[in-house]
């Protein structure tokens, strides 16, 4: 039986740690470039998750033994590294560094086409690394399980291979689509929408009987939400755009959502239908870009997106509660 007060305490601690981290970094450097913004987002998320894990406490085995351990010890640090280096090579500072080098060779004062080509190549390379991460993620999360050693009754080797390839492809597509949306106006709503999906996943997985998985998802939701709100406030106060932060938070939130849902499906009792709905629900944000549903005003767009995403998630929660009352309620 979960200790609701303890979970609430851990969630609040995670949110507070994320906010304090953003505040500290904002005070240290009020006006920030892409790299500093990305660093702030990643550090805030890490601080929130770490604090929440300590307060709960959520025991993590090193070397990792379960899917959740592998997510925390391998997958998330790898994602952080990829995103940080990605921001570093796409950042204005790096481009400026290349520009000054090309200036020394060609002092006419114009950005050379070579610089443009290099930047585009690096952009392609960054996405290739991300796609490779998407391909590897299901394999890492399922490592050592009955699915990969061919002893599972439900899934054959061929079926599990198809499932891993399909889920990697789905993650890659979602990443591209949501990354694009995060660059547009009201882009900060995308990580908030993902946080809603993560919250739904947390409760659904807990109601299905996997407390630890749901608890981690709660901490992720709190950290993601707190970081998003904090960096958005910082950007508004300091007067810089929020596209970079929205993209970084979208990426981490999506990777966390995908991982939690995959672990809940293959190790817990989350159904395939619930997993797919939760994973794809943030895509409903794209409906506000449709001409027929386009809204004017940032707040209207944000509200519209969150309402659209909340509808299927609310239905899932109701169904999960009904199932819990029927099957597991009697055990308590």
């Amino acid at each position, binding site marked *: 039986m979960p*200790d609701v007060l303890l979970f609430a305490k851990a969630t609040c601690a995670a949110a507070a740690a994320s906010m304090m981290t953003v505040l500290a970094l904002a005070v240290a450097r009020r006006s920030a470039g892409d790299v500093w913004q990305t660093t702030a987002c990643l550090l805030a998320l890490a601080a929130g998750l770490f604090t929440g894990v300590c307060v709960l406490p959520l025991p993590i085995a090193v070397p990792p033994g*379960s*899917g959740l351990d592998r997510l925390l010890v391998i997958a998330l640090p790898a994602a952080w590294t990829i995103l940080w280096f990605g921001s570093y090579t796409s950042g204005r500072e790096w481009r400026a560094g290349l520009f000054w080098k090309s200036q020394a060779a060609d002092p006419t004062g114009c950005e050379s086409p070579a610089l443009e080509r290099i930047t585009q190549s690096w952009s392609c390379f960054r996405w290739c690394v991300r796609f490779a991460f998407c391909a590897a993620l299901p394999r890492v999360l399922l490592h050592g399980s*009955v699915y990969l050693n061919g002893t599972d009754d439900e899934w054959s080797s061929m079926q599990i291979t198809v499932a891993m390839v399909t889920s990697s492809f789905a993650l890659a597509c979602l990443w591209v689509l949501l990354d694009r949306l995060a660059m547009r106006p009201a882009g900060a709503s995308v990580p908030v929408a993902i946080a809603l999906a993560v919250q739904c996943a947390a409760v659904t997985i807990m109601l299905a*009987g*996997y*407390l*630890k998985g749901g608890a981690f998802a709660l901490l992720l939701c709190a950290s993601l939400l707190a970081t998003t709100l904090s960096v958005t406030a910082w950007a508004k106060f300091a007067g810089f755009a929020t596209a970079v932060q929205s993209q970084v938070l979208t990426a981490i939130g999506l990777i966390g959502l995908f991982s939690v849902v995959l*672990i809940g499906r293959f190790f817990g009792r989350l159904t395939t239908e619930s997993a797919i709905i939760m994973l794809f629900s943030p895509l409903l944000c794209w409906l506000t870009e449709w001409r027929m549903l386009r809204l004017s005003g940032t707040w209207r767009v944000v509200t519209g997106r969150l309402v659209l995403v909340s509808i299927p998630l609310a239905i899932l929660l109701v169904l999960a509660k009904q199932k819990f009352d029927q099957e597991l309620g009697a*055990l308590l």
Partner: protein
Amino acid sequence: MTAAKFVQTLMLGLLVTVGSTTAFAADDYEYDLVHSSVSFKARHLDISWIHGRFNEVSGKFSLDREQPAKSTFELTIQADSVDTANKARDEHLRQPDYFDTKQFPTITFKSTSVKPIKGGYEVTGDFTMHGTTKSITLVLMGGEEHVFKGVKRVAFSTELSLKRSDYGFDKNAIGPIGDAALIMIDCEGVQK
């Protein structure tokens, strides 16, 4: 000595030698699932006991009566065969908060040393559950042989108490079910 008497003596000598060798060799036994059981019980709300069993168990043991220290014992339990007479609870027990059967499909015991005691054996070995291995000592009582329909059988019984939190079970999930579990193993082996 006549030739016949020489052959007779030789044959007798050979028989004694072979017989001695057979008597000194270890007897190998296979775990008989039909006549054995691995069951457990744990406290519920500290007022009652929840009982359960594992339905798929396999194992083998080798008994060396002359040199008991050379005996070996192995047991493998399929964790997802857990049965507490409640389907919903069994599904719950298979999840990562408890046995995590998709990640850790088996619970195993493999002996590392055996010591004869009055009435049985004291067996020390590696017990692995939920990805955690610890050295434990079992007191196996029994070991009497019985030949039934030409097949030799040997049986042992043991009980052990262990804490689920020592084996990586989620402490938050322990709650109304007690941390300590009592495991009862009644094992009958059939000589191979």
